[in-house]
């Protein structure tokens, strides 16, 4: 009984938050409502006896990822102009139909394949012996014995991703050693100008740089 109440509360929070993230116009609102979704997904993990993964979900998704995304939102702007355009209604109806079809297809496949498997009639919260001991010890043993090789490969993947992210995101310099973006010598002093003027100047400068680099490509 208790776990069903918890489940329904988390389900409402998760689906509502996901819908908000898709539909809301402000990017900050979308990122913050995804925090709600990730937290309730962590709650679902707990209902499935996955205590270690629930905490990992909170640390990685809720804390790490959402903060990174908030940085990205502040970098690219909260309410982008293009999101304000009215959507084509015929197009959104067809999106809805496709979404319903995919939903039905996935659900049918999974429930037909596994839904009839006999499941213990007790609540999952007390079913497993994991409920007393937690899954962390078992999981650590598995990761360092049977899955040691994938574990090491995952660390190489993380290293490669880290180096790749630094290389991609760093500023480019041309042959004479000056910054290609050229933000070192902007036409306007960013520290003293009023905020709107500074943003407009920066944007104009970026557009100019983008246009000139597009010219060079062609």
């Amino acid at each position, binding site marked *: 009984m208790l776990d*069903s109440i918890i489940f*329904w509360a988390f*389900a409402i929070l*998760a689906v509502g938050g*996901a819908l908000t*993230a*898709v539909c809301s116009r402000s990017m900050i609102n*979308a*990122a913050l409502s*995804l925090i709600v*979704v990730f937290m309730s*997904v962590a709650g*679902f*993990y707990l209902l*499935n006896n*996955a205590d270690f*993964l629930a905490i990992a*979900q909170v640390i990685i998704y809720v804390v*790490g*990822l959402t903060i*990174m*995304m908030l940085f*990205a939102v502040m*970098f*690219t702007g909260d309410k*982008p102009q*293009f*999101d304000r355009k009215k959507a084509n209604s015929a197009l*959104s109806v067809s999106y809805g139909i496709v*979404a319903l079809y995919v*939903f039905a297809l*996935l*659900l049918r496949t*999974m*429930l037909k394949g*596994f*839904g009839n*498997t006999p*499941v*213990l009639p007790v*609540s*999952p919260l007390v*079913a*497993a012996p994991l409920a007393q001991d937690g899954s962390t010890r*078992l999981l650590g043993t*598995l*990761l360092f014995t049977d*899955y040691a090789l994938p574990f090491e490969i*995952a660390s190489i*993947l*993380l290293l490669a*991703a880290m180096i*790749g*992210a*630094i290389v991609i*995101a760093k500023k480019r310099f041309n042959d004479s050693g000056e910054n290609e973006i050229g933000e070192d010598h902007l036409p306007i002093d960013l520290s003293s100008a009023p905020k709107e003027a500074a943003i407009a100047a920066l944007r104009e400068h*970026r*557009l100019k*740089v*983008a246009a000139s680099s597009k010219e060079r490509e062609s």
Partner: protein
Amino acid sequence: MPDWLTHIGLAHFVVVSVLLFVIGLVGVLTSRSVVRVLLLVELMFSAVNLNFLAFNNYLHPTGILLGHVFSIFILTVSAAEVSVGLAIIIALYRARATADMEDYNLLKW
């Protein structure tokens, strides 16, 4: 009270995770902001994770943790993916001065 309301089975978790996955999919396909697309890809990742854990819990309640191991690797890959994705967003924003997906047409044929 109906039985499906008080007894939470495997099907409940499957329905919720498929719902989250489809919402994320529709958002990825329709949204025009790159940041939102990257966020919703993460939503799809955690929906898949939830599926792995629910199946593991209901089909192997005695402590075979295969689904947990899969989830840990999915978590790792998604963390790597989001760091590279954010770097790409920053590089794209420098080059095009916009976050609109429609303007990223350099590879369009």
